[in-house]
């Protein structure tokens, strides 16, 4: 029998009810698949007094396609997302990333909303209450110091969701519902570079859906090519040590558009800078190595995993190089 704190469960069927039920609880959380939240509750790093279950809200369970965009409900499961043919056609990297999250059983109930709102991770944080107490806790939760960078006051816990970087490639927008109604913002604005508080959601806000406009290359109407790859020690289950999403358009042997986004190497997923410099370049070995080096310098992994950060930085570059080479 597992130790579980006392909590109350709400199971609303509309976004509005969900938001108001959440608003009524002093310390509530949205519960989707629970594949992250319940682990954290069991470890005592989350202690909500009530949970608002979002998977019974029809609006959040659907993927809808129009001629120029696709809308993904926040409670769509990763299996549904990875298996959706429209998503696979237009946003290959998104489908691939969703299919690389955790293991197959997790993807059955883990949702895209939960994946985007995943807590940041660190070996000093994702441990039991006994463990963290024995280690005097840390900045991110209940403690005074950071064990990764003991001198500083910043938390480097890494955002380790696989899907966010793939969506960032396509300038995805998220639709948020909160006590003050609904709003939309670029997915990139959902995150901030702070491992302790990496989400910009205000209290009680719910991620209802993701909207992604279909992108085409400048010269043809074909969807822009994209791909996702993650580094991990095992072939399944593991979070990304580094995750890389690449979208690239090539015309006449030259790069016409290049975007690369990273996850797993810092407190937020982000689009790499300076990729426009490669526009007009041929995809030769030197170009690919330059892409690699440019990604490497931006992947500032810290010692938040048992695998050394040195490797995570290098492998981020290597994966970018490998994916870019595969798209050429």
């Amino acid at each position, binding site marked *: 029998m597992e130790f*579980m704190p006392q909590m109350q469960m709400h*199971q609303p069927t509309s976004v509005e009810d969900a938001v108001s039920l959440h608003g009524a609880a002093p310390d509530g959380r949205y519960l989707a698949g629970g594949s992250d939240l319940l682990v954290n509750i069991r470890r005592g790093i989350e202690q909500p007094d009530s*949970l608002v279950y979002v998977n019974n809200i029809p609006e959040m369970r659907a993927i809808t396609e129009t001629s120029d965009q696709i809308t993904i409900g926040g409670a769509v499961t990763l299996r549904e997302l990875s298996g959706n043919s429209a998503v696979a056609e237009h946003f290959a990297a998104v489908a691939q990333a969703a299919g690389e999250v955790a*293991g197959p059983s997790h993807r059955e109930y883990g949702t895209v909303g939960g994946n985007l709102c995943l807590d940041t991770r660190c070996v000093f944080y994702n441990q039991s209450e006994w463990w963290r107490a024995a280690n005097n806790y840390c900045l991110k939760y209940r403690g005074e110091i950071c064990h990764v960078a003991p001198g500083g006051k910043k938390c480097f816990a890494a955002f380790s969701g696989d899907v966010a970087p793939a969506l960032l490639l396509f300038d995805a927008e998220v639709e948020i519902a909160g006590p003050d109604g609904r709003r939309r913002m670029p997915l990139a604005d959902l995150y901030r570079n702070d491992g302790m508080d990496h989400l910009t959601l205000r209290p009680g806000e719910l991620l209802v859906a993701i909207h992604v406009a279909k992108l085409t290359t400048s010269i043809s109407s074909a969807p822009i090519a994209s791909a996702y790859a993650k580094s991990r020690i095992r072939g399944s289950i593991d979070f990304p040590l580094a995750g890389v999403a690449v979208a690239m358009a090539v015309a006449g042997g030259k790069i016409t558009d290049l975007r690369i986004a990273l996850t797993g190497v810092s407190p937020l997923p982000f689009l790499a800078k300076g990729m426009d410099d490669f526009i007009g370049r041929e995809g030769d070995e030197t170009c690919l190595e330059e892409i690699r080096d440019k990604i490497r310098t931006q992947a500032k992994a810290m010692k938040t995993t048992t695998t050394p950060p040195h490797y995570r930085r290098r492998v981020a570059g290597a994966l970018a190089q490998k994916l870019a080479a595969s798209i050429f």
Partner: protein
Amino acid sequence: MKTVLSLSVNGTTRDDVIPDNMLLVDYLRENIGLTGTKVGCDGGECGACTVLINDRPRHSCLTLAVTCQGARIETVDGLSRDNRLSALQRGFDEKLGAQCGFCTPGMIMASEALLRANPKPDEAAIRNALAANICRCTGYVKIIEAVQFAAEIANEIADEALAS
């Protein structure tokens, strides 16, 4: 913070009053005595607790029982029909897919979900379906053979059941 949970477990409908914070695995093992489902880790890492909810595999250790309102739950305890081992139960037995047997309930349920959706899986499909289930004894070789064998005999067993 208690709720009446109405659901079907292994084909039997039931109503139980349970606390909101109760995990499905504890409901199954402790409340209704179905100890076939195992706990191998502290949450989501091993797959030993895999059960079927409406035909799909799920970690019962990361599922709150109250969210299973109205659901159809199946566990390894209920797979044998008419006192006959299911195709997978026979496969894991006869092909030695089970050594110590601790991962077996989860393995069998994850495989059951696979075979229901894909009765003739190739090896890659089997590997992908079992990729959240850890086994420490077999090296997985015989687990793959067990699922392949089960897929082959599944029809046979269905015929026998009809005949009897």
